[in-house]
């Protein structure tokens, strides 16, 4: 299968970049540990609420490094070579997505091991959360493919870090959106990151009441739209880059 072959190559490219491992795994783990050492009032930083936030935060770096990989591939002649091969668009897109799934599983497993050491209850919900987070991660990977298709390798780091900031400020991982005001709260509601966090939080804590219908609709709509956009833009840029 060409897509598996491409995914294997992408996986190797990603894990052999030490920076990607530091930001995707070490930094979120450090934050998870450090925020549990400070006694911050409120529910946001309780381990059962903050661990889902850390998962989403880790995913934002998946977006960043996916965009860098795609932009790097576009900038090199490798995609010219692959463009003349029998690979089809679905092989590229699924190849990029599949290559990130093992990294997501490694990320989640390490986050939960540390979270459990820090006091998170060990339960079957952790397995469910890892499974649901694989689905949630698709939107972050698709964002990465979309950004990487639009910008150069140099710009991908900067643009990717905007996503990291957006996730931090609009997901509710650090503070409730209601603390900032009505307009900001509305923006958060219409971006997918708060919905993504609520879904993961709800599954982990077996509290499905916090996952609203709006969360599900927003999340699914964004995932479908961003995925389709990433396929269209990637395909288009592959041709236009070669002019």
């Amino acid at each position: 299968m060409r897509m598996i072959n491409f995914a294997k190559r992408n996986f190797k490219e990603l894990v052999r970049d030490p920076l990607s491992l530091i930001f995707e795994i070490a930094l979120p783990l450090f934050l998870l540990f450090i925020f549990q050492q400070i006694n911050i009032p409120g529910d946001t930083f309780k381990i059962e609420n903050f661990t889902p936030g850390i998962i989403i935060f880790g995913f934002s770096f998946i977006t960043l490094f996916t965009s860098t990989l795609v932009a790097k591939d576009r900038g090199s002649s490798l995609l010219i070579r692959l463009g003349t091969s029998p690979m089809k668009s679905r092989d590229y897109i699924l190849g990029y997505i599949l290559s990130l799934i093992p990294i997501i599983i490694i990320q989640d497993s390490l986050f939960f091991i540390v979270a459990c050491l820090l006091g998170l209850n060990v339960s079957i919900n952790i397995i469910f959360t890892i499974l649901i987070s694989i689905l949630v991660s698709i939107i972050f990977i698709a964002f990465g493919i979309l950004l990487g298709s639009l910008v150069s390798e140099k710009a991908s780091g900067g643009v990717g870090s905007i996503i990291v900031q957006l996730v931090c400020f609009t997901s509710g991982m650090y503070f409730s959106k209601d603390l900032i005001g009505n307009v900001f709260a509305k923006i958060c509601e219409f971006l997918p990151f708060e919905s993504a966090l609520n879904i993961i939080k709800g599954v982990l804590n077996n509290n499905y009441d916090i996952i609203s219908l709006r969360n599900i609709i927003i999340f699914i709509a964004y995932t479908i739209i961003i995925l389709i956009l990433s396929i269209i833009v990637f395909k288009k840029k592959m041709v236009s880059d070669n002019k």
Partner: protein
Amino acid sequence: MDSIVTKKLIKKFKEKTAVNGIDLNIKQGELFALLGTNGAGKTTTIKMLSGLILPTSGEILIEGMDMKKDMFKIKEILNVSPQETAIAPNLTVKENLEFMAGVYQIKDKETKINELIKQFKLEDVLNKRAKTLSGGWQRKVSIAISLINNPKILFLDEPTLGLDVIARKELWEVLNSLKGKITIILITHYMEEAESLSDRIGIMVNGNIVDIGTAQELINKTKSKNFEDAFVSIATGGEL
């Protein structure tokens, strides 16, 4: 049988015409060199012939198949070594070969990979990551990869650029050994390379093929002393 046929092939980028209605007939097993000044349309022609970009108009037949209808079948039987080295930087040389063997779904990939390792003398760099190799080695690996699927047609865009004299001569040997077995389209700026390797040479100027022939035919036609003078005479319309 002709390996490559183009009929009135045109490629326009907005207002600019990069390729202006070229007609080509390249025979099976022929080594055809495409020469021209920078911006003459050589690389654009190769990109169209290899299915990377679509022509604005005109027809391309590869081994009798229509590029518009049978693009994916055509892509199985050709390969390209682009102008810049096209390898995965964080993969080792062996992994690069394995990766591309996977792209083309090569059945007996170990045998083919070992054959290329031997042919391009890659033993010493096999387990080194591609990005750590010198430019010359990267190019050598890039060219080796382009033979992974036993292509019937091979496009080489300035393959010896950046290679030292010995590596260049080694590549010439490889190309000579392939002559007659596969069709090779070679873009080069080195006149001696075109002259010594090619069966025929096409000279492109401003998107048109202005002359085609063997090196000797072109020398005789322009009454030049050598092939370089013949090329300059044809490319400048006799002004230099």
